[in-house]
Structures are given as C-alpha cells and as structure tokens.
C-alpha cells in the first residue's frame, strides 16, 4: 500500500474499531466520576452484546432495516438494568466496588451463555442478517485527503459514538448534573452539605455506565462479530477501562484513547502489507498496539489521577 492508501485505511479503521470502546469507556467515566469504580464494564458489554444479537435475530422481521438500531436501545436498556446490581451492591450495600465489579463480569457472561443455551440450545447464536450499513457522505467524501479518511465508509455507530462522547463532555462539564456528578466523585461530603443527593447521583451514574456499556457491547456484536458466543466480548471491557484511564477520566480523553487503540491496532494490520515491515516476524506486529500504548503512557501521558473519592462507599458522617 502507498502511504496515502495506508492513511485511508488506518484512519477510518481506527475510528470504526474505537466505537464500542468509546461508548463503554465513557460509561466508565460517568461511573468513576461519581466515585464508583466500575471494573464490571466487561460484563456490561457482554450483556449488551448478547441482548443486541438476540433482539436482532428475534425481531428482524418486524423492524427490518431499523433492527440494529433498536437492538442498541434494547441492549442499552438491558445492561442498564443489569448494572443496577452493581449500583445496589456498591452504593447501598457498601460493597467493595472492585469485588462487585468482578461479580458483574462473571455474572454477565454466565447469564448470557446460559440464556443462549436455553434459547437456542446452542453455545452461540446464529449470525444476524441485518447489520449497520456503512455509507459515504455525499460531497464531503470528495474533499481531497480528508474525504476518503473521514467521510467514506462511515458507520452510523461511529458517528453515534463520537456524538455521545461530545454529549458526555457537554453533560459532565457544562450542566448542573455534570457539576454535581464530579463533585460527588471528588468530595461526596461537600456535595452532601450542598444538598446534592450523593446516593441518587451515583445510582444514575452507574446506570448510565450500564446503558453505555450495553450499547458498546451491542455495537461490537452487531458490527464486528455478527453473532454472540463465549468469545464475542473478550477483554474489550478491560480495554475500555484502559481507555478511560488513558483518557484521564475525561470523555474526550477516552474518545482519543480509544481511537489511539484503534489506530495502533490498524497500524499493526496495515503493517502486514507494507514492504519491509511485512518481513518482520508477525509477533512484533501482534504486540505493537499494546507496546505503543505503554510507550504513549510512559512518554507523554504520565500521571493520571482518579477521582478522589472513587472506590469508597459514601457513609454519612464518616471522615
């Protein structure tokens, strides 16, 4: 591939690859900004991926081309409800949030696989028939250089992911809700004395993370794997956590980090077609995305501080 071709390949691929991570990582941002560590993102994604596929398979005749979109909604809803478990445990029952998150991960995959077994008597579902189409954006695609990079082969889901990232930024940094959310994660007692309902804020935040994680999972399963099985979501949730931390708990940071992962991933794949690079043993290309991430972190990102109160249950009157 020529340099331009490489670019035209890498950029859209990076964005595409990033979409599920962006949404899930932003879910994580909401949860952790409110002070609830959410290591259960993987489980929430699993739930979303599973529900998305099942809904798509079941209702494809009813909703036709709209099925994948409606599946996203339903998956978000389901994972949102599922995340209430984490909320109840870690907010009301004062559970260790990491433990509760681990339980969510284990529970998500167990429930999903068990249900697949019950529903289809199989270990994995069939392939969905109606997927998200990809399209070119008229006129914009003709802009030299930029057109082929950003406006060709566009996925609605990528637009959605970026839109949600911007929306999340807006909500977290511009609205009263966001101000309270951040306050609750930094200094819940202060927020409490100012009349902010810490418990309510945290519940909402965890549920948002469930919804977004679910949508992220459903995007993954509907755009990438096309079916659901035990290996469909395989570490994506942990990558999302990495993106969240990499992005310093900022929605646009998470967006950037997820796209960076996508970039590194597609770079390693593009590498297999570039002369000379092609000759390097493939293991170096396989580990490239992960090594790049570590370098990026060590090189320019450096210290990232989690929201101060994250991980601690809020108990009134405790200091």
């Amino acid at each position: 591939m020529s340099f331009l071709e490489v670019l035209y390949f890498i950029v859209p691929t990076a964005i595409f690859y990033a979409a599920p991570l962006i949404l899930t990582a932003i879910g994580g941002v909401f949860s952790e900004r409110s002070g609830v560590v959410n290591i259960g993102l993987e489980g929430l994604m699993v739930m979303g991926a599973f529900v998305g596929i099942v809904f798509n398979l079941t209702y494809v005749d009813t909703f036709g081309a709209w099925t994948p979109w409606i599946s996203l909604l339903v998956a978000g809803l389901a994972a949102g409800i599922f995340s209430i478990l984490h909320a109840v445990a870690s907010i009301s029952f004062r559970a260790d949030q990491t433990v509760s998150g681990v339980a969510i991960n284990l529970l998500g995959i167990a429930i999903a696989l068990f249900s697949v077994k019950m529903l289809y008597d199989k270990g994995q579902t069939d392939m969905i028939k109606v997927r998200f189409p990809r399209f070119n954006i008229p006129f914009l695609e003709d802009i030299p250089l930029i057109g082929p990079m950003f406006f060709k082969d566009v996925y609605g889901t990528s637009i959605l992911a970026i839109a949600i990232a911007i929306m999340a930024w807006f909500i977290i940094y511009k609205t009263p809700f966001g101000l309270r959310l951040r306050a609750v994660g930094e200094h819940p007692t202060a927020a409490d004395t100012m009349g902010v309902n810490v418990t309510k804020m945290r519940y909402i935040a965890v549920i948002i993370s469930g919804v977004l994680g679910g949508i992220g999972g459903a995007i993954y399963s509907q755009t990438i794997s096309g079916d659901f099985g035990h290996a469909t979501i395989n570490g994506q949730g942990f990558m999302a956590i990495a993106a969240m931390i990499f992005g310093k708990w900022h929605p646009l940071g998470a967006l950037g980090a997820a796209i960076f992962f996508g970039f590194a991933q597609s770079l390693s794949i593009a590498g297999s077609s570039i002369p000379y690079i092609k000759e390097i043993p493939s293991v170096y290309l396989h580990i490239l995305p992960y090594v790049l991430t570590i370098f990026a972190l060590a090189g320019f990102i450096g210290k990232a501080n989690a929201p101060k109160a994250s991980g601690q249950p809020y108990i009134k009157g405790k200091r």
Partner: protein
Amino acid sequence: MEYVIEMLDIRKQFGNFVANDNITLQLRKGEVHALLGENGAGKSTLMNVLFGLYQPEAGEIRVNGKKVKISDPNVANDLGIGMVHQHFMLVENFTVTENIILGSEPTKMGIVNIKDAAKKVQVLSEKYGLNVDPYAKIEDISVGMQQRAEILKTLYRGADILIFDEPTASLTPQEITELMQIMKRLIAEGKSIIIITHKLKEIMEVSDRVTIIRKGQGIGTVTTAETNPSQLAELMVGRQVEFKTEKTEANPKEVIFQIDNLVVTDYRNIEKVKGLNLSIRSGEIVGIAGIDGNGQSELIEAITGLRKVKSGTVKLNGQDITSLKPREITESGVGHIPQDRHKHGLVLDFPIGHNIALQTYYKAPISKGGVIDYSKISELAQKIIKEYDVRSGHGESTPARALSGGNQQKAIIGREVDRNPDLLIAALPTRGLDVGAIEFIHQRLIEQRDKGKAVLLISFELDEVMNVSDRIAVIYDGQIIDTVKPNETTEQELGLLMAGQDRQSNNGQVKEGDE
C-alpha cells in the same frame, strides 16, 4: 430576648457513646456566639446536628421561635443556616464559583451559567470584603481564600446564621485579623454567628457570649464582657490552666546545628529558600516566625531530606547532613514533628502502635534480620501511650484515623522525642488543639531544651513563638532577616519584620550567628 436559634437539651449518641448530653445553646440575633470546649468535647457534633448532618436522639431545635426538624443540610440551607466546616468542604479541582453554586446552579438553557454566577460571587465578595478570585481553582489558592470561599458558599445561599467550626486553626495571623473584620461586617449586615475556636484571645475579641461544653455536657453560657480567659479555660477544662508556659532561663551551649547559605527550590523549581543562614545551640529553642509561604515548608523539607537542596550546607554536630536520605538524617539525630500530621506524620490506616514505631521499626530491638518482633512494637507503643497520655479507644491497636487530632499529635511527639534526637523540629505542633493539649506539648518542647537538645519551632502564631522560643528568627522571602529575643521585642515589631521591614530603629542589626 429574641433568639434566632435555640438548641434545647440536644442529645446525640454514637452507639453507646454520648457525644452531646442534653446541651442547650441559644443564639441571639446579631451576636457572635462562641462555642468552647476541649478536643472531643462535642462541639462539632452539636453544630453538625444544627446543620442537619446528624439527627439528635433527643431535644428540640427552634429557628426564629418555630420548632423545626432539620433532616438534612438542604433543610438547614432553607432555614438560612450555613456552616463553614472544620475540614473544608471544597472540591479541590473545582473553581471557587463552581464550589459556591454546587447544588443550586444558575442555568441558561440547561447550561450552567458560570459567567453570571461568577459575577454574583464577585459582587457578594465585594459587599462583605471577601477577597476571592471567582475563577481560581481551590487547589491553587491559599487556605485563607479557601475559607472565604466557604463563607461565600453560605452567603450565596442567603444564610443569615453562620456557623464557623474552628475557622482560625489553619490561618495565618493576618488572615485571622481579616476574618475577624469579615465577621464584624457580617454582623453589621444583620447576620448571626456561632464560632468554635480554641483560641481564647479570639473569643475575647470577637464574641458577645460564650457557651462552654465539657465532655459532652453543657457547662453554661457566659457573657464575654463579664469574663476573662483564665475563667473560660477553667470552665472548659475543669482546672486551672497556665497560659504563659512556665520555663526557666535557657542555658544554651555550643552550636550544634548550622545552616549555611541554603538554597532550596519548590516543586515548580522556583527558589523558595534563598541563601538562608541559621544556627541553633544545644539547650535552646529557636522559633521561626514568618508569614506562610516565605520558605518555611521548603526549609524543613530540605533539612529533613524530603526535598533536594540546591546549594548550601546543613550540619548537625559537625557532620554534614546536606541532601542525605531522610533515614540517614533521622539517624544522625534529627526528630521531626511534621506540619501536616495526616499527610506526613501518620499512616492513618495503621494502628497507632505501628505509627509510633514508624521511625524505629527497622532496627533493633524491634527488627532483627529483617524480621519484626511485634511484641517489641507493643512495648514501645504502650510506653509512649502512657507517657504522653495518648487517648484512644482500643489502645495501641486503634487505627490512627480514629484518634482525635490532639491525640494523634501526642503520639507523633512521643515517637519523635523518644528517639532522643539532638535536634527536634516542630512544625505547627499545636494546630487545632485545645489549650490543655497545647500546654502539654509546649512543656514537652521545653523539656527537650532543658535536656540540652536543640529545638527548632516553626509556627504562624506569634503567641506561641513568643512564649516558647528562647530566640526568634524571622524568615522573610527565603532568608532569615533578623533574630530577636522574645523578651526584647513586641508583637508589633515582629509583625513588621515578618512583613519584610528591617528594624531601622534598632542600631546594629543582630545578624544570625554574631551573638
């Protein structure tokens, strides 16, 4: 008489422990009402009840004569009650304005209207003479400004009754003066104030009446004009308290600690200590007086090895200890009571016993061949707990976090003094402590001196410096600009020196070292 707040027979229990035992407090409109009591007497608890953070087990609260139930801070806000907490309730990475509007944000089409809010904050702060920058981040501003932001939080919500819980504990004298003026202005504007403070001088200066509580029980209310500090102290502690720490004349011997031309930079690489010279003799207490931010923290950190020295030397007993590792420095005979006991002084999640062993755990007799003998730690801890009267729920195994500030401080002092250091550095050793505890700690410092040790005391409180030191070195802009004897100077003179003015009137500047 018109009361804006009446707390009648309030009882608050934590489990079986009674923190407030039928306490009554009545606040008149337009008065400054002081609440006085030892550490742990139950003052904060009482105020937290008033602010709706705790629910009392018994008693009633009336606001403007009407009985109310303050179920949470929102209700308190609505009733016009605002509180400035002992530990600030500020989100560190928010701006002043964001902290102020939190919970009742003005919006424009769903967006927080920061500009309007900031303007309002500006107007308010001008009205009450509270100098704040609405757009400054809390973590970047001084403690004084943080406190003014706290006050603005209550005013912004239209509070008429303001509660100040130990507002002066961490302020510099200048800031305290400012705060007193602010409070007077607030009263003039028709507000009423309850203030908790351990400093009797402040009570005498600013309050109209004082309510005293002792070990959870109300002792009574007195009118400030009809009382005096020693009576207040006696009411509070239940015995006579000496204010002027009793001490004999110092008997300094040879110089054992010497700093020459020390230059230290802060974390932003800006020089904060600029060629400082200082020497201390054995058997004397040198107090460093100065306004916060003139290089005190950097100086101590440099001496104790927590911060790199750029140039210059530090010598103890003739041995060069410049830029050694912290442990090498403590080993060479330095003891250090750190300025921030929570950040540096203690591992709050460790039992207090472990904390007492924090400087000695690694060597015999506690540690042998890399293995710790925990019974030796217990022995040491029990000894110090007894000697220094460290009070805690379950003795040495109580988590340090659960001790009151005064007791935490006593444990730290015990730990440092017990190692018998040649130089003891005490940085703000009495911050937030009641008069009894202060007395105790001052005596310990003097005891060290009398044993022939050198003591370096850093304090923002002139009283303390004047009382305890044998010699006062004034620090200004990273240098010791003058050294005076406490009995040969006045607070006014010290104040001027601290502001950077040389003693022109005195002929022959007493420079460091030429005594």
